[in-house]
């Protein structure tokens, strides 16, 4: 089936099997390997991408054909004009990653979280990220990273493009 998907602002037309999962479409058809896969049960969230600038979705639990006509943002779309997004800066500054495998998904979920709640408390961040697993960091520095990003975005709103 022919689909047309806008990913990180760029339109792609591809032929896919209906059963192709969005995560593999992004990784294998488009070569955007920043979106990872870590389970088969929609549990881990390393595959999270942003749908239509408003939903964080597990791309392993969405068919590529469902994205036809929609906009997707992946980790690769976070840098704007060569400048790191405050979330990227926050994760780096606060040691919010170790192996980095969960990091793209964490940042995508956080992106939507901050869009909906620009000034979240620690408890709200912990709640908001609870669909994403991390095996390395113990989450504490991830929370700090999101706090730093929130503060930076409040003082200097960034253009958020999906």
């Amino acid at each position: 089936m022919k689909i047309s998907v806008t990913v990180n602002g760029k339109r792609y037309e591809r032929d896919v099997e209906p059963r192709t999962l969005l995560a593999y479409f992004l990784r294998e058809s488009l070569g955007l390997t920043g979106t990872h896969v870590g389970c088969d049960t929609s549990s881990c969230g390393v595959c999270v991408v942003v749908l239509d600038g408003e939903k964080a979705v597990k791309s392993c639990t969405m068919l590529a054909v469902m994205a036809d006509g929609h906009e997707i943002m992946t980790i690769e779309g976070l840098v704007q004009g060569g400048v790191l997004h405050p979330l990227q800066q926050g994760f780096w500054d606060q040691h919010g990653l170790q192996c980095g495998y969960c990091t793209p998904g964490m940042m995508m979920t956080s992106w939507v979280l901050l869009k909906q709640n620009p000034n979240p408390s620690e408890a709200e961040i912990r709640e908001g990220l609870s669909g994403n697993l991390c095996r390395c960091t113990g989450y504490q520095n991830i929370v700090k990273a999101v706090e730093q990003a929130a503060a930076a975005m409040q003082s200097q709103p960034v253009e958020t493009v999906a």
Partner: protein
Amino acid sequence: MFPAPFDYHRPGSLDETLVLLAQYGGDARVLAGGQSLIPAMRFRLARPAVLVDINQLDELAYVREADGMLAIGALARDAALERSSLIESSYPLLFDTSAVVADPVVRQMGTVVGSLCHNDPSGDWSVTALASRAQIVVRGSTGTRVVPIDEFLVDSFSTAVAEGEIALEVRFPSPPPRTSGSYQKIERKVGDFATSAAAAQITLGDDGTVAQIGIAIGAAGPTATRVADAESALRGIKPTKDAIRAAADAARKIADPVADPRGSVEFKKDMAGVLVGRALLAAFERLGVGGLR
């Protein structure tokens, strides 16, 4: 892991959807949020020949009050309820539930109606729907039916939706004044289905007695289960510690869970009681009735 091959249709209208469902009958499955269906297909526990994707039907994405009812359309996501000020202010039971279904990412895709249609014995929405006496609007090519929730939940993973039909919306009666509720869930971690769950919704009369009440438990039988004995015992009386304790015991008695890695039958039965007690207590306290602990 990948689904087995299937045919995919994405109708642009409800009518088209109904035509497709009629055409493919038992071979077709409605695809809503996909948060239950796609994992099942990846494990090949589900192998539908045809998927009818309703995600394009934006007109079904509503959460609105009309005619004394809150209507939630088939494409309204859990997250829409979690973020709705209407739900937060007027539907405490629904609001509680919307925050503990699955995980916050899954909730951005998963739908309330899809969850009811999936009818997992440990699902959350069916418990809440029972306690608040919801109805489901079901449409097929021959017409529309409104099915009370007690009749809708037929058996594990089975509902009143017949081949060729679609569930259009779920309706919750708008609560009269002095109504509150609470949802209580024990889960091993976020993203786990309930080990045990309980929902309570209470309306107090002017005299402080219980005018209307709904109590239901989850993960305690083939489907969510109404604790009818507790409802009738509490109806018409002023709440007391003993009455709450008795309601909890009624839940223990009626609970018929299965043993699984989440817990033994004995544990789950007891939790059904503990959670019913806690749900009632929280609901009464939200209504300003104290002294029940």
